[in-house]
């Protein structure tokens, strides 16, 4: 019964039609393969636009996801890349590199369902190399 009731609790969806000028891909000339991989592996939780999976229509999955997405976006929002100071960009780049290097990101719970989000060793190398190229000393 509770399960039926909670289906009627709405969540605010993280969806947006427009990509702002401050977006990581617009600010940087990101090579196409890396661009695609980042969109698939990171943007669901680290931008203002989530491509919601089917199971997100069912409560309480929607709440669970909402939490995750909010947390991810607060930590790093690729759409707002250019609003970060250059010091902060460097910090974020470093964290991105560390997280990917140690396979902490993308989250296992995410790649379990979104197979395409998993980064193979080539993708890891490419992304890290690219992020390093953006770092300033």
């Amino acid at each position, binding site marked *: 019964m509770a399960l039926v009731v909670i289906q009627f609790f709405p969540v605010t969806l993280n969806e947006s039609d427009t990509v702002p000028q401050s977006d990581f891909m617009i600010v940087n000339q990101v090579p196409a393969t890396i661009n695609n991989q980042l969109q698939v592996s990171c943007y669901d939780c680290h931008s203002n636009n989530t491509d919601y999976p089917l199971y997100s229509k*069912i409560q*309480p999955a929607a709440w*669970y996801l909402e939490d995750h997405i909010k947390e991810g976006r607060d930590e790093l929002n690729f759409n707002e890349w250019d609003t970060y*100071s250059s*010091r*902060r960009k460097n*910090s974020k780049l470093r964290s991105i590199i560390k997280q990917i290097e140690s396979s902490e990101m993308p989250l296992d719970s995410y790649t379990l369902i979104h197979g395409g989000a998993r980064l193979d060793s080539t993708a890891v190398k490419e992304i890290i190399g690219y992020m390093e190229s953006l770092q300033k000393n």
Partner: protein
Amino acid sequence: MKTVTRTIGTMALAATMVLTVSCKDGNKNEPAAPMSNEMHQESMDDKDDMAMSDNQDAKAEAILNDYFNLKDALVGDDNDKAKELGNTLAQSLKSFDASNYSDNETSELNDIIEDATEHAEHISESDIKHQREHFKILSKDVTDMVAITGTKAKLYEQFCPMYDGGTAWLSKEENVLNPYYGSQMLRCGKVQREIN
């Protein structure tokens, strides 16, 4: 028939989710950390300019002091203590008001404080490996802050060539105790610069 199977499947999935989430909910009663944000928005309206300037010096010194305590906790491999001190440092950083400096300095300081606060907050909730990763950038932030605010204390910038391709930190003592390795390699490093 197919729909029935699918419905049952969906319900099973939903039930699993309920279980997962109810476990998670168990922890939700703990007070949320971000409250600190408001606590430190104390206004400074009632203080005149002179007091403010002294006050800002004191706040920069407080940040340094918190930073050194945090460094000592990392030297001692004390994850819990470092968490606590990361939080203390985050509070001190948030109460710093950079508006009393020149425009350029204010903007630079605001960037530094914003970045440093984020690192301090991460330190307050991470394992020791992550704490040390964040401490590296935090150290750079604090060093850059001191370059603008100055400090009364004599400081030593120390450097360990082994950690993460070479990493610096600040210390009040000349004696090298390494916060990135702790007991694993306590003495790794040297003084590379003296401040004051």
